[in-house]
């Protein structure tokens, strides 16, 4: 009980949960179920994500992937089960405590969800302004985040002046500007052309390999998941390169885990290798 009602903004919680050396899962779902208007969307979902891990959520459209992500951020409340983020039961947090907890989480929305009345700079700096970061420092951090997504030239533009891919990159910059401990990507490549999709996946990879941020990546594109699993970001070239097949990982990132959802239930969870070798007929059909 005291842990549930602890203030996440206080040093006692923020300094330990999710920090280096801490073995508490960053995200833990236990028997989580949710239904909308009587129709079950997620049923008895149990999984956990360790610090530094990337969990890819796969599944057909409408299977509850985005709902799961919104549950992890406390944007929705489960009908039953427990969700712990940084060790705290988010269902038990008070309103203020939940908003303080979200300061440690970055989220990239499916349709970018940029504030259309604000410029790119104001969008990216939104959280910094809320935290009353001095203007000069906020500007420097916005430029840094925009450089990360290679979009610093668009700093004064409005979202309506950007292409879909550029908006998605601004959304990523907005999510990473405060260096969160956890990033939730909701279909970051949804609706984009293959080349732009690869650019976005490269940014997800860059964040994973440069900052080692714990991530939950929702996607319905298998190729995105396998690109993430089989490549790593190369700082020398500024692009991705395949993991060596003769290396310790045998060409696959072992830090990546997969969770496959089907009709609101977990159809599979495990590593990349376990996924491709799964004997489950539905999983096989999905991967085919």
């Amino acid at each position: 009980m005291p842990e549930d009602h602890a203030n996440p903004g206080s040093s006692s919680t923020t300094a330990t949960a999710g920090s280096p050396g801490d073995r508490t899962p960053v995200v833990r779902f236990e028997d989580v179920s949710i239904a909308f208007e009587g129709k079950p969307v997620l049923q008895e979902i149990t999984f956990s994500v360790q610090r530094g891990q990337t969990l890819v959520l796969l599944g057909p459209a409408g299977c509850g992937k985005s709902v799961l992500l919104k549950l992890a951020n406390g944007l929705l409340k489960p009908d039953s089960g427990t969700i712990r983020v940084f060790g705290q039961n988010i269902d038990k947090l008070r309103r203020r405590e939940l908003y303080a907890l979200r300061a440690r989480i970055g989220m990239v929305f499916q349709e970018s969800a940029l504030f259309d009345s604000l410029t790119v700079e104001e969008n990216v700096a939104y959280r910094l302004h809320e935290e009353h970061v001095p203007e000069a420092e906020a500007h420097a951090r916005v430029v840094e985040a925009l450089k990360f997504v290679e979009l610093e030239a668009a700093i004064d533009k409005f979202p309506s002046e950007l292409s879909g891919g550029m908006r998605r990159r601004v959304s990523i910059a907005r999510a990473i500007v405060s260096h969160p401990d956890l990033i939730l990507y909701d279909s970051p490549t949804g609706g984009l052309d293959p080349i732009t999709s690869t650019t976005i996946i490269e940014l997800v990879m860059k964040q994973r390999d440069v900052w080692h941020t714990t991530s939950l990546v929702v996607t319905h594109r298998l190729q995105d998941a396998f690109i993430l699993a089989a490549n790593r970001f190369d700082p020398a070239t500024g692009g991705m390169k395949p993991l060596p097949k003769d290396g310790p990982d045998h060409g696959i990132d072992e830090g990546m885990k997969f969770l496959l959802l089907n009709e609101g239930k977990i159809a599979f969870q495990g590593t990349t290798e376990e996924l491709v070798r799964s004997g489950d007929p539905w999983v096989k059909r999905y991967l085919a």
Partner: protein
Amino acid sequence: MSILSPEVFIKKQVATVQEYSILSGRAIADIFSRPRYWADIFTQMDSIGVGSLPIIILSGFFTGCVLALQSVTALQEFGAVSKTGSLVSLSMVKELGPVLTGLMVSGRNAAGMASEIGSMKVTEQIDAMRALGTDPIRKLVAPRLIATIFMLFFLTIIADAVGIAGGALVSVGMLGLNASSYLHSSYASLVHGDIVQGLTKPLFSGFIIATVGCYFGMRTTGGTQGVGRATTQAVVVSSVFIIVVDFIVTRAMIGIFGS
């Protein structure tokens, strides 16, 4: 359109009242706690107050004009034409000023709030705001609530004043009444209770406009069609609420002041 059973229908209505009450309660609580978004409050004051000024002046002025024209015809039958100023000022200050201002601002701003917040809702901007650690009720609803209540109070005073002025213009310019007599009877007929009654109503109307507009915006679903639906509902519900609450406040004021 699916047909709901009476039980489901009643449950939905109760849930709506519950959600509205929670939103209103939280918005009120947020007014009295930090952080406060002063820039948003002043932006809304400008949009709601200054932006509504032209329609309030026009509607108030012509209501006063029509009131004078209509009342003179009736008062002539009783030989009480000199009471025109009294009738116009009492009607404007106690009833027409507050209600018309409320309805005009409701049509303009409840619709604006519902469509603006509704558009943000369907494009996930509200969720993004929450995900970025900002409480949308504190950021979007509370500033609109403060701004609407504050500005509607002054807009009502302006509507009352221009309504009486409009009545004077018609009475003196078209009906040949004495200007001094009109203004004296206007002023003399107003008592403390009338002013209190007339200026209490916009406080309630302001609360209704902001909370109903924001509520329908926050619960918008279904894309652009949903935004249109939320906007219509916000105007209809807030207008009806304003008239119903006007009756309740009038009855309460008669109970308190006796007239």
